[in-house]
């Protein structure tokens, strides 16, 4: 069985340490260095975790779409693993968005949930990709890659419709908008981008680990399958 490549063994811990440093710096910036917002106070700092998580989730779902299309065209097993990994990690980040959103909304607007555009769209996105993960878990392993890829394409194509329909719905039935519209203080933008960079690196490392885990798992499963075949032949 092929062991991990030596280059990867070295790169991973280094990147891990760098990412940890970046995340700590980003945390410091969010809690200490960033200016306090006037109307909301310190609670607004949730923004620096809420928004980058959303952006990261969207990127991961986009990667899932690309990998799924690639799989449908080339039937490349690595692409299938990338699709699975990006969907899983994307759902994790999306969950963070859906949890930090209400925690932010409650002190600011007094309500836990508002059917505002961004939160609602994120919820639907989360539902679509969780259903994708369910399909992957419940379908028999021979078919899973192709079926999942087809579902991923449909899900991704649904996204613009989700945004358009909710946008129009909201213009007809306005609700408090979370996250504040309008221009943003450049210092806040700076902190936001640092957090985004840190979380993107973190997401990359998580995806990489999950990818390695999945490749190993599939090799083991194949070895098991081969073994049972040999047992059958030997025993006959």
């Amino acid at each position: 069985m092929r062991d991990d490549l030596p280059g990867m063994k070295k790169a991973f811990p280094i990147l891990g340490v760098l990412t940890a440093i970046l995340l700590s710096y980003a945390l410091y910036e969010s809690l200490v260095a960033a200016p306090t917002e006037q109307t909301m106070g310190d609670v607004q700092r949730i923004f620096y975790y809420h928004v980058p998580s959303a952006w990261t989730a969207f990127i991961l779902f986009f990667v899932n779409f690309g990998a799924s299309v690639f799989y449908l065209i080339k039937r490349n097993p690595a692409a299938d693993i990338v699709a699975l990994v990006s969907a899983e990690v994307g759902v994790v980040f999306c969950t963070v968005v859906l949890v930090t959103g209400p925690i932010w909304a409650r002190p600011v607007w007094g309500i836990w949930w508002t059917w505002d555009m961004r939160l609602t769209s994120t919820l639907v996105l989360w539902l679509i990709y969780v259903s994708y993960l369910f399909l992957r878990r419940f379908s028999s392993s021979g078919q899973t890659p192709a079926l999942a890829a087809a579902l991923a394409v449909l899900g991704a194509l649904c996204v613009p419709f989700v945004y358009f329909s909710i946008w129009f719905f909201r213009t007809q039935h306005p609700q408090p908008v979370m996250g504040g519209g309008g221009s943003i203080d450049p210092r806040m933008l700076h902190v936001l981008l640092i957090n985004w960079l840190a979380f993107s690196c973190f997401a990359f490392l998580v995806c990489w680990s999950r990818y390695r885990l999945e490749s190993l798992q599939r090799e083991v499963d194949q070895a098991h399958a081969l073994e049972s075949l040999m047992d059958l032949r030997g025993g006959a």
Partner: protein
Amino acid sequence: MRNGYLFAAYAATWIIHIVYLCTIVSRYSRVKREIADLKKPGVAS
């Protein structure tokens, strides 16, 4: 105290990430065990 919400949000974020990482780590050790089992000469059933 409003800052309680701030810390709750940051804590929740990291709890979610750590839980996911824990699932990866536990599955990884299980795979390592399965590899070790495969490598030693198996007892014919």
